[in-house]
């Protein structure tokens, strides 16, 4: 089977959608210079092919009373072959984790962890993070402010 390749019109549509995810289909069609029918068909195709996997609500945890956000970076002790799987399974069990990434480099894993306040953070850190298996090194970057966040691609 031929691998699906988005063409320049698909890219134009996605660029508009990424730039303004709340735009209506009519607005998107106009900005991308296609008809509504064509827009609908192309978005459907992009979904089927897995290029576009969804549109999700972005939640502001601070507005929900979760004042503290920390980026935790982990290096694992890789002498145990199960270290990666064990660690990931345990990390997924921590409800305060909102994002997980794995890396090639000096850091193996990164997680975004949120807490209600500093006292709660200390508790999460001691009870849920330091108890994760196979950690060899761990460092924390505490969020001061988010300057930019965007899923846009320079298409």
């Amino acid at each position, binding site marked *: 089977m031929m691998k*699906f390749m*988005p063409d320049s019109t698909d*890219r134009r549509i*996605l660029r508009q*959608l*990424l730039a303004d*995810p*709340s735009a209506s289909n009519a607005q998107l069609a106009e900005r991308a210079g296609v008809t509504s029918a064509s827009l609908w068909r192309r978005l459907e195709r992009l979904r089927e*092919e*897995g*290029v*576009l*996997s*969804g*549109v*999700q*609500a*972005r*939640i*502001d*945890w601070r*507005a*929900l*009373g*979760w004042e503290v956000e920390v*980026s935790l970076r982990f290096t694992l002790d890789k002498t145990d072959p199960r270290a990666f799987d064990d660690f990931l399974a345990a990390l*997924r069990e921590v*409800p*305060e*984790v*909102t*994002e*997980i*990434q*794995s*890396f*090639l*480099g*000096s*850091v193996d894993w*990164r997680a975004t962890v*949120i807490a209600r306040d500093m006292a709660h953070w200390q508790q999460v850190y001691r009870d849920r993070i330091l108890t994760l298996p196979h950690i060899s090194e761990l*460092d*924390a*970057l*505490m*969020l*001061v*402010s*988010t*300057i*930019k*966040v*965007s*899923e*846009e*691609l*320079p*298409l």
Partner: protein
Amino acid sequence: MTDLDATDLAILRLLAQDATRSAADIGRAVGIGQPAAWRRIRRLTDQGVITGRRVVVDAAALGFGVTVFLGIKLAAKGRISLEDFERAVTAIPEVQVVQHVLGQFDYRLRITARDISDFERILRRRIMTLPGVGQVEANVMLSEERRPGPLGA
């Protein structure tokens, strides 16, 4: 902070998975009518709990096969302006996330690139030339997942 009940949290859980569902559909899923669901979604948006939408695309299928996380330490604190650094770094189209942090680094960045040589170009021409940039650490992302977070289950 805002006081949310179990229905609000259930609505947030559903919208965090798929923000395109209609109020009628969301209402059915949580056991309330369309007008009540619409009012709750409206209130969550007005209160700033829902801040917008995130489009999830397969960046690799669109030709952006490499995502790199950078930690940046500013070289001479006090002598350079954070505003100048922030203005310059947010203007780089390949930079998707900029966060001011406390710890081993001053800023953390998420960068999208076509491939490793494209990333090298961005690093040399755009990042290393930023005002005040000092030590830089790069980690190439292998995989990623978003978790629902503490919305209750």
